[in-house]
């Protein structure tokens, strides 16, 4: 039984508190949370940071947080720009791109 959390539109420092609440609620409610970020149009570092933090949180609570689909273009671009994909760990690669780094 998993929960699906769909994120859309703009995910920036302005909406980060909202995202944090949503993630906390979802992780409280179920042991397996899937994030759908395919429709995110705009994002900044705070989004990546919140998701990283949530992953950490999930591991500590023995829960699973995953992406419903591999990260879309804009997210991948930001991850590249912010240096998340240099020397990427297998773990991160699994999380963001389901194991396959798009070229």
């Amino acid at each position, binding site marked *: 039984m998993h929960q699906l959390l769909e994120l859309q539109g703009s995910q920036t420092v302005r909406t*980060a508190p909202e995202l944090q609440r949503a993630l906390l609620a979802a992780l409280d409610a179920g042991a397996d949370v899937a994030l759908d970020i395919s429709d995110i149009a705009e994002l*900044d*570092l705070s989004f990546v*940071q919140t998701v990283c*933090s949530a992953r*950490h*949180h999930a591991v500590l609570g023995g829960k699973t947080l995953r992406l419903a689909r591999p990260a879309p273009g804009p997210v991948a671009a930001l991850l590249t720009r*912010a*240096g998340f994909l240099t020397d990427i760990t297998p773990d991160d690669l699994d999380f963001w791109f389901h194991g396959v780094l798009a070229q």
Partner: protein
Amino acid sequence: MIGQDPIAAFRVEAGELLEQIEQGLLDLGHRLDDRDLVDAVFRGLHTLKGSGAMFGFDALANFTHHCETAFDRVRKGLAPATQELVAVILSAQDHMRALVDGDGKGLEATGDAILARLQAAIDGAAGTPVAAVAEAPAQGWRLFFRLPPEAMANGSNPLMLLDELRELGECKIVARTDAIPPLTDLVPVECHIGWDVELRGDISRDDIDDVFIFVMDDMELKIEALAPEPAVETVSLPVAANDAPPPAEANPASGRPAAKAGESVRVPAERLDELMDRVGELVIVQSRLSQLAHGSAVGSEMALRSISEEIERLASELRDTMMVLRMVPVATLFGRFRRLVHDLARDTGKTIDLVTEGEATEVDKTVMERLADPMVHLIRNSCDHGLETPEERIAAGKPASGQVRLSAHQQGGEVVITIRDDGRGIDRERVRAKAEAQGLIQPGQVLADQELLQMIFHPGFSTAAAVTNLSGRGVGMDVVKRTIESLRGAIDIKSAPGEGSTVTLRIPLTLAIIDGLLVRVGEGRYVIPLAAVEECIELSLEDDLRSRGRSFITLRERLVPFLRLREMFETGTRPDPHQKIVVIATGAERVGLVVDQIIGSHQTVIKSMSALHRDVTTFAGATILGDGGVALILDVVQLVTLGQHQEERLRAAG
């Protein structure tokens, strides 16, 4: 405020930075081992360089860069701060000012000369030629940085910094997420991501610093040079905790208003709020008034009176609030003199302490600007003529270092500024000899001490036996006096032989509004500044007839010349049967003005004369009376001079 020229804004900011640097350097001159001061100066230079480069002042940025590098070595303890270094950077700072004000053309030679001296100072201080170390070209750099948590909320975008780093050269950036707190503890607007960066290429340390210039203060930053250089250089920011706040955010309260150089005043926001409150109240009263005008309510007379009272109160409050807006603390004025005294001490070889008091006293900005020159002159006089050399002082049983004390305080509607030194005092014998030589007084003439001292205000008067570079050219005290009087102020001098001199300046708080005595001459009305009025006496018809042709009255056994304003202004009217004489004075000189009627005291808002009437001398301005009529304001200084001329003419005629 909108469409501000950024260059002009930069010049204002740079001016402030330079002032801070100068103050820091002057303090440093006294306390060479003060780390906080070194840091403050360094950061001032650093910010100046950064914003200079940003606004296209490349010459400034380059030049400042060298000074900053020198100071950086002091900051890191690689070289001690020395008097020589402070002196060089002070002169460098003057050069920077020139670069800020101009485009740097034709100044290269000066700049190079200063840099050469700077290099010498640094080398001398370190004992070994070490200039190369700071700028050692490395193969590249390895750095780790984490921004201050609030950086994102403050609007810096870490991604832009990363992009800038990429522009420097070949760059490998790895994000570090280990410091991100778990979701429950995360403050999502804070940034906890850190970055490891490897930069390869011919990149200087300063290039990297430039990237972080705006976030540098609280960030975590480790930089080390990449192999093969074994040297490891680690700088950890933040710097000392009790450091002065960085200039860029020095005064959030005053709101960093758009300041165009020269013609703008920085106003603390709360004062503007106060003004806004008053304006708000005024709008309310205005709407009450218009309601009253349109309606025909019973008892409207009462309501009208209450509105009138309200407006009267608001007008006076608005006036007070408005006047305060133009006020600036004298600290800014006093601050300028520290450098002056520093330079004077160096040029004269004396040790001079400058002590300031009452810096919080506020003066109208225009007044302040016009006070600067006379004060420079007075301070020069004190330092050059007043204070003795250390040897003379010790011989006289005084401490070796002389003291110049500036103080300011408010007294009624005036600000009193005193310049006091503990030097040798004014040499009365020399003043007397000089005055006799110039024919100002008769040999052997008996003079009150105060009158004798007043002699130094005569044009061309100097008691200095030798004309020095600094003062003693005989231009000065008369100009000082004239400037102070043009501010409607007064200058007073006291001096005790062997103990020093005190010059006291009394300046009205504002130039915009004065208390005046409203008088009538013929059919016109005129205002005489109340501060200049000594007394009013009646000129009886007999006295008037008797003194015709000889315009003198005897006032407490002294002859006072008087001017018949009716004749001067050619009113063509018959004199009033009960004419009055208003006696006005500046300094020790008095003159009477014959008027037809004294109407009373009048708060006068001064309107300056139009360009067409600029060369009219008898009047200082005009004002609008309660009934809408115009009254001219008499220029007291001019009239007194005129009266004195008349006296001399008559004396000459016998």
